[in-house]
């Protein structure tokens, strides 16, 4: 009889202690600071406008473009881009777009700032398959939509690059024939420990 009372008091005390603990800290399958730094230093996380153009022209179906400009500034996006403004990435219906393993998300903004912020946050949360378009839309416009004609003294490679960019420009601005281009496909990075446990007893 006595022991039952002791047990009740003990378990209630445990519950009260639990209730007083502050909220969960390690809420996400987050990377720690060293892992996050590693991701930042890894070149394969970044994609240039040229590489993106090649991927889009080759029709890679797994590329998903995410435009992080605010909704009011969401004008002239890349083809079929999804608009997820920086300030609303934590809304439920958007977060799942980042936390997935099917698409390769290419995050971009007008310039680097907002896209970098979104990218770092998704990385820290431990989401895989998110890439950053270097230079953002401005770099895209400068290199693909309005490529600069190389100087007379430029090397052959630069002229080749210009030809490719010109072809890409025609593709994106509505022209026809595209010469075959070589591109470097980005392999999806398998998340280290992001896999949610599949469980249950059904």
């Amino acid at each position, binding site marked *: 009889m006595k022991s*039952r009372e002791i047990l009740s008091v003990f378990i209630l005390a445990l519950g009260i202690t639990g209730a007083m603990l502050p909220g969960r800290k390690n809420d996400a399958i987050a990377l720690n*600071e060293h892992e996050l*730094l590693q991701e*930042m230093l890894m070149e394969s996380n*970044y994609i240039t406008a040229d590489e993106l153009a090649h991927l889009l022209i080759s029709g890679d179906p797994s590329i998903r473009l995410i435009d992080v400009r605010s909704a009011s500034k969401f004008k002239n996006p890349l083809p079929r881009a999804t608009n997820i403004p*920086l300030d609303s990435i934590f809304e439920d219906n958007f977060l799942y777009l980042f936390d997935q393993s099917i698409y390769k998300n290419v995050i971009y903004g007008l310039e680097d700032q907002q896209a*970098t912020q979104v990218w770092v946050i998704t990385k820290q949360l431990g989401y895989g398959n998110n890439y950053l378009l270097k230079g953002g839309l401005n770099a895209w416009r400068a290199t693909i939509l309005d490529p600069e004609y190389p100087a007379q003294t430029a090397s052959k490679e630069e002229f080749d690059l210009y030809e490719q960019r010109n072809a890409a420009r025609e593709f994106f601005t509505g022209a026809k024939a595209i010469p075959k281009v070589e591109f470097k496909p980005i392999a999806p990075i398998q998340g280290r420990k992001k896999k949610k446990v599949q469980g249950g007893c059904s």
Partner: protein
Amino acid sequence: MKSSIRPLAIIVVSTFGFLLIVSFYADKNQFELTAKEVHDRVLITDYQLDSTAFVQLTDPYLIDIRDEHHYQIGHVDGAMNIPLSRILEEHYDELFQADRPKVILAHDPVKGHEAWMLLTQLGYSQLFLLKLKEPTLEPLILHVGSGESIGGH
């Protein structure tokens, strides 16, 4: 009931002890802020300095996060070099904790924002990021080597 208290206590204590020992060796996350808090923080853009705000800072540390090679070619006068890849080394902790404004200088805005977010999430305060595109910052650059300038890209 009384007799069963002792084995019970032993089981509970040993289980938690085992879990504690296992977890002791696991790597710990040092981040002070959650991703959500960092997100709320980056929405306030006061940490990005333009030239007028920059000159108003009193006695700031200037931290150049480019690699050593670029730093030696040309850098802002008085800036110290902490490459991004070494930014987490322990002996810099004191520097970041100092009660002085710390300004991150980066060649590449991506790296600049990354460094700022990483350090902010670790809980350091008074961190700023210099917008290096301003032409008015040109005079700040002292050692300019072979065409490599700190501003612009």
